């Protein structure tokens, strides 16, 4: 017997010997199929007493030590990004993926930042990504891998800027899974789904919280209030 069969048969044996009335194998299989098919939601934190969702999202993003801003359009987003770079004395050089929403960014004439595309080589100061969603419950950005938004951009730069469209904000994780299933199909996901809440940090030295461990030191979140 190979290891796979050994483990599985040992599990079955343990379950059968301990549960006198273990349901029939068909019933068990059905229970599993049903659960995966219907993926029931459990207890979901009630956010109704909180402020409206966007305010909650902002609150949670800021609580995660990220900075937050909201703009009316992608045109305005470009200006906000440039302003952010200037404010933090960062070079006007940005790496980003091929997300077509980036095409709507209108950089100011003359001082257009230098744009690089493709995955990060670890030497970037600033990377820009577009999130697929945002989770208001915890102020979390949901990013999916692909040429539009390569995953390395989420982790290698010192400063990470994430755009998220206001209409993609979800109340909770469960709503976010719903959106992912709509995007990728049932039971399928992009290679990587990153849920990001704030800049990287460590408390491994005397439990002192320090921002900027191996991932970005700074995270700037921009909510774009523009219907696509």
């Amino acid at each position, binding site marked *: 017997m190979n290891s*796979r069969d050994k483990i599985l048969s040992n599990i079955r044996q343990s379950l059968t010997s301990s549960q006198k009335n273990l349901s029939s194998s068909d019933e068990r299989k059905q229970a599993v199929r049903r659960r995966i098919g219907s993926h029931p939601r459990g207890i979901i934190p009630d956010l109704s007493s909180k402020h409206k969702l966007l305010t909650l999202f902002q609150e949670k993003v800021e609580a995660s030590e990220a900075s937050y801003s909201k703009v009316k359009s992608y045109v305005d987003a470009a200006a906000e990004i440039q302003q952010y770079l200037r404010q933090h004395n960062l070079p006007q050089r940005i790496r980003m993926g091929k997300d077509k929403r980036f095409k709507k960014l209108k950089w100011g004439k003359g001082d257009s930042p230098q744009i690089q595309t493709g995955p990060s080589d670890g030497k970037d100061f600033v990377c820009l990504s577009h999130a697929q969603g945002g989770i208001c419950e915890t102020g979390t950005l949901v990013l999916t891998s692909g040429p539009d938004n*390569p995953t390395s951009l989420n982790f290698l730069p010192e400063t990470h800027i994430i755009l998220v469209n206001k209409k993609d904000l979800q109340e909770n994780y469960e709503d976010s899974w719903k959106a992912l299933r709509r995007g990728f199909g049932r039971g399928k996901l992009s290679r990587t789904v990153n849920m990001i809440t704030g800049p990287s940090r460590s408390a491994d030295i005397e439990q002192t919280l320090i921002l900027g461990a191996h*991932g970005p030191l700074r995270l700037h979140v921009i909510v774009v209030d523009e219907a696509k």
Partner: protein
Amino acid sequence: MKISSPEFKNNACNALDDNQLQGALRHVRKNFVKKRADARRDLPEFDALRDSARAIKDHTLAHLDLYLEHYEKKVIESGGKVHWATNAAEARGIIMDICRKSNARTVTKGKSMITEEISLNEFLEANEIQPVETDLGEYIIQLRGENPSHIIAPAVHLNMDQIRDEFRKAHTHLPAERSMDEPETLLREARQILRDKFLSADVGITGANFLVAETGSSLIVTNEGNGDLTQIIPRIHVVVASIEKIVPTLEDMAQITRVLARSATGQETTVYSTLSTGPKRKTDEDGPEEYHVVLLDNGRSSMLGTEFSEMLRCIRCGACMNHCPVYQAIGGHAYGWVYPGPMGSVLTPTLIGIDKAGHLPNASTFCGRCEAVCPMHIPLPKMMRFWREREFEQHLSAPSHRRNLTLWAWFAKHPSLYRFVTSIGMRILAIWGGSAKRINWLPMAGGWTKFRVLPAPEGPTFIRQYQRAKRNAR
């Protein structure tokens, strides 16, 4: 990993005498406990979520074979490979094969207790592959040649001076006179050094907090981002996970992650929660070309259905050790193997044997706080007691202790003799205690009187006095 659990008592005494360690443990007592309490207070649904999380794990464990099969199918569909390992040696062999096939020289590692359980680092080193721990805490203890002393805060036993010394010793290419007075400086230095390792590693190995059957994904939750760099930069990503990590769906995963970080660090969520599903896709520009999952049993399938079954609900948050008075006093190393604290006191004997780990389930006051804070409602004291029973049945407990217990139990079962003997005994102790009402030293109770006085009995026993009063009243 060398097992020093049989020397637990010695280890504990050394730990109690270690001033640096005692200083570091103060952080555990103060920070972790308060942060969890705050997080719990801020989420009214916390206890309902714990019940929900328990129900999910119980359901999953009752259908574990089927969920594993479904999970495997989904991993294969997404282009990944699943390897099954019944024990540690098999798991190491599988990982070695993967490394050999790709001519790997260096391996970056995300923080993973399961790779500690299979002693992966020693094995890789012996096979001339360099494992690089990338979690800051893990990196520090790797430099020191130590094991983690806590399952989520591996270097919690160290203070800043010790870490600084270690960095000076290890990072010899940096100017010796550089300033290293702030934790920030140390972190930046580690970031710089590990950055190159991330970029040059051939294989990245991570654990998994959850395996999602619905999608065939592995989830890791981290704060530093090292786990993510480990699983996206190298050409090969290997996930090592034990079989009980599985959950049915993304919804189920979210139920449990809601209590995980809150119980562990008091965060609502960790900075990064990342689902990895298979290798990179055709159009992807980054991500690993190969995705392997090593599913480890190592005795777990045999725990199912036994009195230790509920231990398989454990999500490794560390709340039990953070709140344990014994862990708070001695830290994690004294336990002598991979898993410290209450969860380790239950799990370790299943993995290395009760003959070696007998002290662990005994070294508990049964204060019950571990169970009270466990997000998965694992009855840890009850299971430690089960181990004590096994030990007692197998005659592994100290003969003198056994004799005393049997003798005492015999008297307890014979009330009039008990009355007679205890009356004499108490009378003697009462006289010994004198007017101060305390005994400073008592043979046979040296463990007690070494550190405390023994309060003397007031005089005749209650039952004697009560009987006398009754007689007089008549």
